[in-house]
């Protein structure tokens, strides 16, 4: 993957997960790969799988982590209860400028 925007996005994802500790971050990435065969670098292409991994690990507590991720992606959420899986998947997809341009080209 050579997209600079995606690299920045992954970096902010790393920072968000660092809130929960280096060990936890590695656990999330390793479980994503074990469960769905998705490596860290491919999260942007498979945001739903990443979100599903968070749900499997944290259950109903995953909302807090999703919120943390979005905050670090400099997206604000108005939902005091946390963030839904759809919102995060969409945000991760839409946050990539190239993805947004490709989507508009397809229109």
């Amino acid at each position, binding site marked *: 993957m050579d997209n600079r925007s995606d690299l920045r996005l992954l970096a902010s994802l790393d920072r968000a997960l660092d*809130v*929960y*500790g*280096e*060990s*936890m971050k*590695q*656990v999330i990435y*390793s*479980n994503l790969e*074990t*469960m769905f065969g998705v490596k860290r670098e491919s999260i942007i292409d498979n945001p739903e799988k990443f979100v599903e991994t968070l749900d*499997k*690990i*944290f*259950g*109903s*507590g*995953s909302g*807090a*982590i999703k919120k943390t991720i979005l905050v670090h992606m400099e997206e604000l959420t108005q939902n005091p209860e946390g963030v839904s899986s759809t919102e995060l998947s969409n945000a991760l997809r839409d946050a990539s400028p190239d993805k947004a341009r490709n989507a508009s080209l397809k229109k």
Partner: protein
Amino acid sequence: MLTVKTSIAPDLDAGPDSDEMLKPLLKSQVKSILLKGEPGTGKTTLALELLRIYGSGIYVSTRVSQEQSKDHHPELNSLFDSGEAIEINPQDYDLKRGSSSAYSFEDLRFSNPEDVVNSVIRAIQKVKKPMIILDSWDAIANRTEKSERLKVEQSLSLMALGNEAKLLFVSEEPQLTTTDYLVDAVVTLQNDLYEGRRVRRIQWNKIRGSAMTNWSNLFTLFDGRFTAFSQQALMWQHIAEPQPFVPIAHKEAFYSTGSDDLDAFFGGGLRKTFFVLVEFGQYVGSAAFNPVSTSIRCNFIMNDGCSITIPSPGVSANRIKESVAHHVPTKLIDSSLRLAYFELFDVDPCFFSLNASSAKESFDKIMSEAQKIKGAKNRPCVFSFGSETLENVFSREEAFRFAQGMVQRVRHFGDVLYVVMRRGSPLVDQLSNLSDIHVKLDQIDGTIVIHRLKPWSQLFAVIYDNSQGYPKIKLMPFV
């Protein structure tokens, strides 16, 4: 990792009172527990007991191997053998059901926090609402920096909360750590000494959502099980629906106390001709000993024997008679129970008065009553008196001579004598020297305890069980 799927066999039940005391830890408001204590205080045994009561969970060992676990805690085998076991394949999360006694054990002794978290993740996914025991957590957490440790603990708590699991951290760190502040409940296990005997204590430091009326309770690890002792009423016990006393037969050389445990404590029973001195601790009195006295009296009377007592101060003749009358036919009581007083208030066939002005006359009166009640058959008789009663009435020397005379009589006729004595009595050394057995009854953290000073014995918790309608005394050693 050892996995338990379902509830445990009922024969592993440690007792309803002990389970009730532990249940506040298993309330829904308590998502995480920290169990602290120095090595050897019983943390793993308590963790397993909580797992048994909870009904399903995972035990993650970070200190010992599977074989060592089995050796240290044999009950671990039956705990997991009785449940349905799951073999976990960490490679592909493909669960395969093993045989009823097969289980998977993950040795995490040389692991890092990531390995532990992954174990917890797998467990949460496959066991519904599990209790997850990390034994011990500090074996892993101490390898990471403090800030990282806190983050991992918070993440684990979040995982447990989101999956309705319950986390139990086992720790040997005595000082406050990040875990103390994070968890919902903290209990500490301690070893202590009481007159040179081991005592175990569970301290309730914090339990969210529960009112903690006790700061601590005593417990034992007898038989490899965690059994906590509730605080017992040290007041005079009332039995709601009294039942006839079921006696235990005397043996050739011993008189039974009416309790198998007490008989064993005395070395087979109250040996004929023996003098037993019962010394009370600072915070116990006659009420705490009454179930024992009642059991002894009832057992003697129901075995065609008799009982003669000079009660301790503050214990009325009517109350003693009533305690026995609940469980023994009236006809037997009138012919077999005698209570002596220096000031007589009631007229009763069981009561007789002594002369406070003359120790000799009082002694002769006791002997005369004994001869009458024992009859031509020389029925076995248990004599008992409160030494404080004699000390209040007679001089110290007279009181001691009185006791000596009683002992000589008991030895001559093959009866038995027990004397109850308050703490700090001036006669304690003399009577102890005269005694064949010297025991001490006390209370620690609300639990009545007993041990022998002469000959030496370990400490026992005394449990008064009135469930059968009469006092049944059980003793449980502190191990």
